[in-house]
C-alpha cells in the first residue's frame, strides 16, 4: 500500500444551519488501497463526511486532501471519485450498458476502449449479458452490482459507498459484502464505506471509524474495535455488551478495584478511569464471562437466571448479577449444559483484563 494519507480530513467542521455542528473537528487519515468504514448511528455525521469528500457538501471549516491536494475548490465532477449511492441511483432511462458507458462517454474515451472497460466492469460483478437490460428489469441485487460496476468502470482511485446494501435482504446482503470485499482486494482501489450495520463493517473493513455526535470515537481494525473499545459508546455500539456502573476505589498496576453502586467490589482493567474516586462504566463482553469456571478467575459472583432464550447454536441467559438484571451470558449448546433453568443460581466468573473500566455513561 502506498500513500499513508491518501485521503485526509484536517479539523473539518460542518454545520447546516449555523446553530449545530454535524461534524466537529474531524481528523482522519486513510491509506491508499485501504477499505475504511465509517460506522455510526444515524445523525452521527458519517454520511455528511462522505458527501464532503464527494464534493456535494462543503466543509464549514478545515480542509480535505485527496492525494495531497486540497479538494475543497474542485467541483464533484472533476474529483474523479466513484460513488455508489444508497438507492443505487442508476439512470432509469438508460440501459445497463449506457449507465456504465456514461462516465466513459463524458471523458471522451473512444467507443471500442469504452466497450472493453464496460465489459471488464460487468464481468467483475458477473453481469455479462445484461448490457441491454433496463435497470427496472433487474433485481435489487443486480441493480446493486451494476451500481458498483459503474462506480469502478472509469478506474477511479477512490470509491465511496453510502450504505449500498441497505435495501437488500439479509442473505443477499451477506453475499454482496463478500463480493465487494473481493473486488476491493483484487483491484486494490481505496474504498470509503458508510454503514450503520456493525456486522457489515466488521466483515469488510481494514479499519473502522466509529462515529458519534460528529466525532470519530475510535479508528481501528475490526478486532481491535471489538476486543478493546476505548470508550463506553464504542463498547455499547459494537457487539453485545454488559455494563456495571461504579466508582474506582483502588488502582494497582494494570488492575483496579471498582466499587459498584450495589456496594460490591470487582476487579477491572483501568482504560479510561485510572484514578481513585473516578466514576466509571465497566464493560464486559457476554462471551468473556463463564459459568462455573474451571480455572481461577479474578471475579467470581453468584447470579440468578431470569430468562433463557434459545438461539439454535447457543443459548442466551439473562441473569440478575450484582444488581444488573440485564446481564447477558452466551452458552454454547452442548449436552453438558442441560441443567440451565430459569430461577437457578449459578456461579459466574471473568478475568479483570476483559472487564474494561471506561468513561461513565
Amino acid at each position: 500500500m502506498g500513500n499513508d494519507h491518501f485521503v485526509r480530513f484536517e479539523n473539518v467542521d460542518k454545520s447546516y444551519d449555523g446553530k449545530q455542528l454535524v461534524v466537529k473537528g474531524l481528523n482522519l487519515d486513510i491509506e491508499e488501497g485501504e477499505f475504511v468504514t465509517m460506522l455510526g448511528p444515524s445523525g452521527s455525521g458519517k454520511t455528511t463526511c462522505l458527501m464532503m469528500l464527494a464534493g456535494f457538501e462543503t466543509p464549514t471549516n478545515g480542509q480535505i486532501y485527496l492525494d495531497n491536494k486540497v479538494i475543497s475548490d474542485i467541483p464533484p465532477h472533476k474529483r474523479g471519485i466513484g460513488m455508489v449511492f444508497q438507492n443505487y441511483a442508476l439512470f432509469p432511462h438508460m440501459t445497463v450498458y449506457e449507465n456504465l458507458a456514461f462516465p466513459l462517454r463524458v471523458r471522451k474515451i473512444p467507443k471500442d476502449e469504452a466497450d472493453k472497460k464496460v465489459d471488464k466492469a460487468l464481468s467483475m460483478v458477473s453481469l455479462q449479458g445484461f448490457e441491454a437490460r433496463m435497470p427496472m428489469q433487474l433485481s435489487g441485487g443486480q441493480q446493486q452490482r451494476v451500481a458498483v460496476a459503474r462506480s469502478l468502470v472509469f478506474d477511479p482511485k477512490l470509491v465511496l459507498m453510502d450504505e449500498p446494501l441497505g435495501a437488500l435482504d439479509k442473505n443477499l446482503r451477506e453475499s454482496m459484502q463478500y463480493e465487494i470485499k473481493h473486488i476491493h482486494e483484487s483491484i486494490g482501489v481505496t474504498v470509503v464505506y458508510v454503514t450503520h450495520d456493525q456486522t457489515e463493517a466488521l466483515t469488510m473493513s481494514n479499519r473502522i471509524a466509529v462515529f458519534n455526535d460528529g466525532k470519530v470515537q475510535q479508528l481501528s481494525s475490526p478486532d481491535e474495535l471489538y476486543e478493546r473499545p476505548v470508550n463506553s459508546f464504542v463498547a455499547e455500539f459494537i457487539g453485545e455488551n454488559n455494563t456495571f456502573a461504579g466508582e474506582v476505589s483502588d488502582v494497582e498496576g494494570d488492575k483496579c478495584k471498582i466499587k459498584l453502586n450495589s456496594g460490591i467490589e470487582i476487579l477491572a482493567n483501568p482504560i479510561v478511569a485510572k484514578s481513585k474516586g473516578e466514576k466509571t462504566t465497566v464493560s464486559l463482553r457476554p462471551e468473556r464471562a463463564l459459568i462455573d469456571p474451571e480455572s481461577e478467575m479474578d471475579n467470581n459472583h453468584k447470579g440468578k437466571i431470569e430468562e433463557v432464550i434459545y438461539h439454535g447454536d447457543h443459548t442466551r441467559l439473562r441473569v440478575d448479577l450484582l444488581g444488573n438484571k440485564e446481564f447477558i451470558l452466551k452458552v454454547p449448546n452442548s449436552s453438558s449444559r442441560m441443567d440451565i433453568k430459569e430461577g437457578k443460581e449459578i456461579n459466574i466468573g471473568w478475568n479483570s483484563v476483559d472487564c474494561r473500566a471506561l468513561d461513565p455513561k
Partner: protein
Amino acid sequence: MSKEQILSSDGIPLEQSLKKAERKNKLKAVLLVAPLFLFILIIYVFPIGDMLFRSVDDRMITKMLPKTFKAMESWDGQDLPDEPVYKAIYEDLKYLKENKTYGKIIARLNYEKSGFSSLIKKTVRKLKKIEEGNYKEQFIKIHKRWGQPEYLVALRNAAPNWSYAKYLKGVDMRFDQNKNIVQVEEDRRIYKILWMRTINVAFWVTLFCFVLAYPISHLLATLPMKYSNLLMICVLLPFWTSLLVRTSSWMVLLQQQGPINDLIVWLGLAADDNRPELMYNVIGTFVAMTQILLPFMVLPLYSVMKTISPSLMRAGKSLGGTPLVSFVKIYFPLTIPGIGAGCLLVFILAIGYYITPALVGGASGSLISNTIAYHMKSSLDWAFASALGTMLLVGVLAIYWVYNKLVGIDNIKLG
C-alpha cells in the same frame, strides 16, 4: 386439446362458482359507476353527438320547400325547368308566406348564391298577384332571375339533407354552382387567419408556460418542505381564484392608464402620450392566458420532478458529467413525461380558450372559440358553430394522436 373442468368442492364447476361469488361485487361496482356514467352520457355524450349532427344537418330547406324539390327531381339542370317546377315553387312559397316563415330560407339560399335575398323577397311580396296557370311566365315577369338557370341550379343545390358545406366555410372554402370546391373570395377569407392565430397563440402560450414553469417546478420539487409548501400555495392561489376575477385583474393591470403602463412610462421606455397598447390585442391574450394556464404546466412537471431522486444528478456529477451534461443527459430526459403532459394539457386548454381572449383580446386577439360563441349567440348559425366546434375537437384529437405516436400516451404523467 380439451382441458379438464375443475370443480369446486360442492361439485359445481369452479368458473361458475367464482362468478357467483363475484356477482355481488360486480353489481356493487356497476352501481357505484352508474351515476357518473349517466351524468356523462346526458351532459356530455348527447350534446356532443347533437353538435356533430347539427354541423352536417341541412334539412331545413328541404323541409320548407318540399314540393319544389319533388318537382325538380325530373329536371336535368341544363335549361330552364318546365311549368310544374314553378308551380311547386309557387305553392311552397305561398304556404311559407301564410305561416310567415319564409325569412329562414332567405339566409340559407343567399349563402348558396347571392341575389336570392331580393329574389325571394320580391317574389313573396308579389305572390298574391300571381294567377293560376302559366306560372313560369309570371315568375320571370316578377323577377328576371327566375329566368336564369344558375339560380334554379343553386336552389336545387340546397336540396341535399346532409352537407359538409359548413366545414368548408370553416376553412374559407365553398361549393360553386357546379358542386366544385373553391376558395371564397379573397376579402372574405377570415377563418383561416383565425385558425392560424388560434394555433399560434396556443403554441406560444404553451412555450411561455413551459419556460416559466420548468424552473419553478424544479425549485418546488427540490426545496425543503416548509418553503416548497409556501411556493406551492403561491402557484395554486390563482388557480383557486375565479377565472373571471383573474382576467379582470389583468384588464386593470394592462389598461392604458394601468400600473404596468405607468411603470413603462416611469422607466422612460415610452412617452406618456404614446402609451403602448397592452390590451385588446394579442399581447393581452398572451400575457393573461400564460398566467392563467401556468398551474396546468407546473403541476404535472412538479409531480414528475418530485419522483426524480436527487441522487441521480449527484451520480451524474460524481461520474464526471458537468452539471450541464448531467442535466441534459439525465435530469431532462426523466422530466419528458411531465413536459409532455403539461404541454398537451396547456395546448389543448389554450386552443379552446374563450373568456380571456374575449375580455382582453379585442379584435386582433380573439380566437376561434370567440367566433363559435358569436355564431351561437349572435348570428344564430348553430350549424356553423357546431362545425367549428367539431373541427376544434378533431384538431385536439389529432394532436393527442400525434403525441401518442411520438411520445406514447402511457408516458404521460399528470400527478
